[in-house]
């Protein structure tokens, strides 16, 4: 019994997150039923929609890709005390930059594809420099500044698409990128593309950076205790700027990968809020690269599954956002769940000991 208790307490954060998720889905089930929608049936169609066949599974994975990269982007910042709510804006600018490189420049694939991804990273990273500079040099709260900066990014790309760049057809979008700038489709007829590999590389990179390098260790130290980091000679502001720009660059990469793998152009308003989802994904993923993959899978499945479900069951697709909101609310209150969980486990144990 003692080992079970120890295990439960050691993985407190995992269990309290799982409990938060369970409560969230409990609330959703109640909501579904109280609005006259069958929760059981909904769940069936949801699973079927997300993983029911090769096509659906592939589509789920195609959503997991940007969510994973964006989630890691948010995580890299948060690990270094940088709360980058600007992933959305950086992602959009990254997508735009990569789309431009994708259709204006003509190069062999081996150079073209990496170049367009780099362009995306550069755009996202540079855009993140603004809030990074403001935070470290002017003491501006990065949450406020990044929220505000998401909007100009949207309007700017919108402006480029509609009024500067040439448009093919009626859809507000840039011209299509060259074939040399596209990811190969992995399974024909689905949206699953080779950007999958990029997502895996990003996760490996984040894990490697944070856990295997000196600079990653320093970034984590800054995130956990700025004062101690400074006391032990770590240049706190420099590391925060690095983390912020790296976060922005990965956000830009997420946008570029969407362009190279899914849309083959910059499509106005292509992002269904991947940038905002990245916060949920990283938080549910316990700020851990591997955790982000799992949580991105969950939220990717939610997006695909609910879309499919809404066709068969008359359950509105807005359920996705709703679930996101409830999950974030519960994760924000996780401290309470964690302490109740801890009390429960300890309490039960003590109760048992008394009986023996």
């Amino acid at each position, binding site marked *: 019994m003692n080992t079970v208790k120890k295990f439960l307490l050691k993985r407190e954060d995992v269990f309290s997150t799982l409990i938060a998720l369970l409560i969230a889905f409990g609330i959703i089930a109640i909501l579904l039923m109280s609005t006259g929608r069958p929760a059981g049936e909904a769940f069936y169609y949801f699973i079927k929609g997300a993983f029911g066949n090769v096509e659906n599974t592939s589509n789920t994975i195609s959503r997991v890709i940007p969510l994973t990269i964006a989630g890691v982007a948010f995580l890299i910042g948060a690990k270094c005390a940088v709360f980058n709510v600007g992933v959305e804006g950086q992602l959009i600018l990254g997508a735009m930059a990569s789309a431009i490189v994708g259709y204006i420049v003509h190069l062999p694939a081996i150079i073209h594809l990496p170049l367009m991804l780099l362009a995306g990273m550069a755009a996202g990273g540079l855009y993140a420099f603004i809030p990074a500079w403001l935070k470290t040099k002017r003491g501006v709260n990065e949450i406020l500044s990044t929220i505000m900066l998401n909007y100009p990014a949207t309007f700017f790309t919108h402006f480029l698409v509609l009024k500067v760049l040439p448009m093919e057809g009626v859809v507000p979008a840039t011209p299509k990128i060259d074939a040399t700038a596209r990811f190969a489709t992995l399974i024909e007829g689905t949206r699953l593309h080779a950007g999958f590999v990029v997502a895996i590389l990003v996760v490996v990179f984040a894990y490697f950076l944070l856990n295997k390098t*000196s600079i990653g260790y*320093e970034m*984590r*130290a800054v995130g956990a*205790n700025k004062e101690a980091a400074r*006391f*032990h*000679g*770590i240049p706190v502001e420099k590391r925060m700027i690095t983390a912020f720009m790296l976060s922005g660059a990965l956000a830009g990469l997420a946008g570029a990968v969407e362009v190279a793998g899914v849309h083959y152009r910059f499509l106005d308003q292509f992002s269904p809020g991947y940038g905002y989802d990245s916060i949920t994904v990283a938080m549910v993923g316990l700020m851990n690269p591997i955790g982000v993959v799992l949580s991105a899978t969950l939220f990717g499945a939610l997006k695909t599954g609910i879309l499919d479900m809404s066709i068969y069951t008359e359950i509105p697709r807005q359920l996705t956002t709703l679930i996101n909101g409830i999950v974030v609310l519960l994760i924000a209150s996780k401290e309470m769940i964690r302490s109740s969980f801890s009390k429960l486990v300890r309490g039960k144990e003590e109760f048992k000991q008394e009986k023996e």
Partner: protein
Amino acid sequence: MSYILEMRGIYKHFGEVLANDHVDLKVEAGTVHSIVGENGAGKTTLMCILYGLYKADSGQIFIDGKEVDINSPSDAIANGIGMIHQHFKLIPAMTVAENVMLGLEPRKGKIFLDLKQINQQTKELSDRYGLAVDPKALVGNISVGIKQRVEILKVLYHKANIMILDEPTALLTPQESEDLFRVINHLREDGKTILFISHKLKEIMQISDRITVMRDGKIVDTVEKRDTNEVKLARMMVGRDVFLKPAPAPKKVDGAVLKVEDVSAVNEFHRPVLTDVSFDVRSGEILGIAGIDGNGQTELVRALIGLQPITKGKITLKGKQMDHKPVKLIRDEGIGVVPEDRLMEGLVVDFNVQENLFLGLQRNKPFSDGKLISWKAVRKNADDLVKFFDIRTPNNEQKVNLLSGGNQQKIIVARELSHNPEMIIAAQPTRGLDIAATDFVHEQLIKQRDEGKAILLLSLSLDEILLLSTRIAVIYKGSIVAIVNKDETTAEDLGLMMLGGTYEHIPA
């Protein structure tokens, strides 16, 4: 004799620390009653209990002979008790009058503020006690001395008869202190009772009628001012029985490792925090820095490792210039630091044991080639240090916030000694530790000393300074006022100098 205030059997502990141990205090009406004691003697805790900020574990409070229940500041205010906090509880963005009236604003027709009354009443109150405060001035724009008067006005406005002043002169200039004493005398003449908390003996002798001395959470004695003097008070404050055996004399003292010459520094408000500090620390000795909290010790340590910019002076380590260099470079030259704030500066509490055991060395061999971390080396280092220093942890991947204070401190000491620095700075190295952990830290410092390291020890505990030091420097208001050999001084001498007295030898 009737007492306006009586506290009986006040008992309070914070975790393992006993802050007030059955304290009895009687205060006569219309007097200035001082409570003196070293840092951590329990004065502030006692006053916070009286003001309802802390709840005593047990004990009674009587006002005018009637028992009262004080659970919050509102209760205290209702019972005529006011407190002038050491850290002002004022709102810089509001005017003096708004601050004074906060919570009890005069109203016009129940809804609106009576702005005229607010300013007028403040003015009247200020004039009556000769406080000369402009009601319309913004608190953010006035000096520290005036801010304190605003706090006094606030308490007067709440119709307090008993006024607690918690270390009121700590932030004041000498002139401002003199002004404050005039105000206090004025208040006493008006029949107010003043509880004056301080550890500065000179001013206590100047202002008090009676004096209560506290030590280790207990009352040592309450005396009339006319029956005592600074020397007697100092002895009561610091003269506890020394039960620890002093360290054996150093084996061999060599040349200076660290040289500090005429170092000055200012804080963010441009007030001087260090003034012309000069000393050196020699190989094989422990130089103790004695002083009351807040006299520049924190800034000194930060200046030595490059965190506090210095405006003047030179710092050299083994002949190499160290001032105006980045922290990392200074530390790598061979300075180990046990910082005064264990949890904020010494450790990253969310990191595990092995991660903390190479904090600051993450780019040094053998842990890293400058880019990549060798976890093998980190693990080996942790295994070695945990064993050698007997750090009690379930495993090396335990987060350190779950360890006891003693084991946390062992981690810091182990790390700082592990890279074999020639200079060791230990700031409050045993604060909050139990006897066993304290002994451990002391042993390590003496061992390092005998290996020829230079050690700078900063401590608020005079006992610890006397126990370990070869020489002792006294710091007062950012200056080193004396450097003496341990064998040629006494606790009383040092106590006097720490409290701002001039050096004169007092036969024990």
